[in-house]
């Protein structure tokens, strides 16, 4: 069915076999509503409680600090709008939020929604490598800053932000810190206390768990204060209502346990593959690696290619023999073929931002995948350049200069 060489693990991942079998057991045998008080309902509740502990363990949190959601997007919405609503109710007016231009749409869009409701927003710039300048962040704090929302790892370029430093600033100024950890969960060790975050969004399907489930970590001490965004029955300590889906939750938990069991080895293996891929690709002229190469999560390589059209590049590598499944810019905005705002924030021209590929590796990526991908990309880039009336000229000009 899936014949393509799959290098789009930052968009979503295949279920790990252990995850699927945990889910299948629930789907086949355990179907009661965990909120029901009868026997089957209590069994389902027990399964959910066990899963809560497993997910909490991966981030060194307590089980009661985990709020199940339908995914990281909902977790981000709950964190951002929930904190804002609480602040608004306390202060009887909107306040100020700080976030970065390179955040995922699932952060940008709820923040924009607040902006339309009277909140002031500081959109932080990033450096050429994609990192936030922490001293610059300190400059924009105000007396009514209610929230700082920063992603742990960027979904397009894989750059890792200095969360601890940002957390120190937030703590000193009594500001709630939310971190979107959709791309870092299971890939970087996370200790919510050591990092100093108040709220942390998680997604299952980025670490070989199922789609449609995620969680928000909500710090108990000192208590992060936020208001529910989906009401109706008071599930999840009143923070998120709706019938829980035990099969999804169990799948998420199994994925967390698996990721926690071999994180160092597995991320080391993936980093080696990624470095090999870059090593092979960079022999092509006119290739630029996007993002800070050093402070980058193991699984992501983002490149811009000079001298080719973005749409043609993506069509070329994702079609034909040995098609690759890769993304151009962010998968989530890919339905509209616009050039990546993340890459433009790094200073890339719209053309180079458009002519970019994100290659993201996961647990099931192999050396063969890397070899095929490197060959395919090199071949297609050379072919498109040969076809272009502009490339010969510009490469001659470069050679001359």
């Amino acid at each position, binding site marked *: 069915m899936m014949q393509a060489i799959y290098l789009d693990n930052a968009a979503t991942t295949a279920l790990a076999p252990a995850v699927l079998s945990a889910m299948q057991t629930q789907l086949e045998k355990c179907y009661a509503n965990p909120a029901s008080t009868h026997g089957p309902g209590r069994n389902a509740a027990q399964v959910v409680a066990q899963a809560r502990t497993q997910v909490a363990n991966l981030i060194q949190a307590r089980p009661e600090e985990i709020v199940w959601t339908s995914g990281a997007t909902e977790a981000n919405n709950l964190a951002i709008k929930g904190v804002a609503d609480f602040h608004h109710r306390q202060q009887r007016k909107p306040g100020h939020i700080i976030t970065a231009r390179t955040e995922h749409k699932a952060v940008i869009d709820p923040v924009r929604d607040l902006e339309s409701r009277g909140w002031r927003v500081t959109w932080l710039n990033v450096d050429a490598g994609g990192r936030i300048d922490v001293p610059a962040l300190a400059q924009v704090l105000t007396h009514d800053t209610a929230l700082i929302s920063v992603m742990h790892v960027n979904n397009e370029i894989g750059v890792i932000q200095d969360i601890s430093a940002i957390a120190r600033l937030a703590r000193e100024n009594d500001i709630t810190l939310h971190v979107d950890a959709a791309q870092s969960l299971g890939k970087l060790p996370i200790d919510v206390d050591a990092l100093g975050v108040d709220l942390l969004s998680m997604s299952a399907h980025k670490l070989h768990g199922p789609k449609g489930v995620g969680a928000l970590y909500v710090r108990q001490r000192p208590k992060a204060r936020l208001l529910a965004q989906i009401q109706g029955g008071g599930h999840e300590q009143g923070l998120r209502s709706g019938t829980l889906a035990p099969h999804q939750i169990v799948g998420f938990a199994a994925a967390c346990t698996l990721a926690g069991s071999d994180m160092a080895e597995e991320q080391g293996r993936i980093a080696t593959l990624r470095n090999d891929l870059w090593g092979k690709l960079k022999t092509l002229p006119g290739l630029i690696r996007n993002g800070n190469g050093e402070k980058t999560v193991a699984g992501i390589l983002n490149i811009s290619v000079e001298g080719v*059209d973005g749409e*043609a590049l993506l*069509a*070329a590598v994702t079609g034909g023999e040995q098609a690759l499944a890769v993304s151009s810019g962010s998968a989530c905005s890919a339905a509209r*073929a616009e050039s990546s705002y993340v890459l433009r924030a790094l200073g890339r021209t719209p053309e180079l931002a458009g002519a970019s590929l994100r290659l993201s590796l996961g647990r099931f990526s192999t050396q063969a995948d890397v070899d095929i991908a490197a060959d395919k990309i090199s071949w297609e880039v050379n072919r498109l350049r040969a*076809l272009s*009336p502009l490339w010969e000229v510009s490469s001659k000009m470069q050679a001359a200069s």
Partner: protein
Amino acid sequence: MIYSNQIETRFRNPGYPGAAQPIDLTGRAETPGSAAVLQLYLQIENGRVMRASFQAFGCPACIAAGDWACEWLTGRKLVQINTLNATQIESALELAPAKRHVALLVEDALANALTNTVTRNPP
């Protein structure tokens, strides 16, 4: 991204790539901002196109349009050439409305070629 079979095939494996020598006529067209560039090269014998080839920088539809045009041009009399119009190209390639500009690009490149004679280098 889903392309018509015509576009998919021609983009992946164009039949008329490059700047095939000798060249008697050549014409180039660009979209505003040079997001797409198409150049046609024609070899003329006895008032007929003996050989056509193209170079393109742009999306798959743009490359396919260049290729399709070369196929259409090959063997035709010069006097017939200006009957080629954008509508023909649109329907042949099943172009999406958002891609109509590539058909206009072919029209423009061809019009420019007809007025742009290249002096053959002596052999």
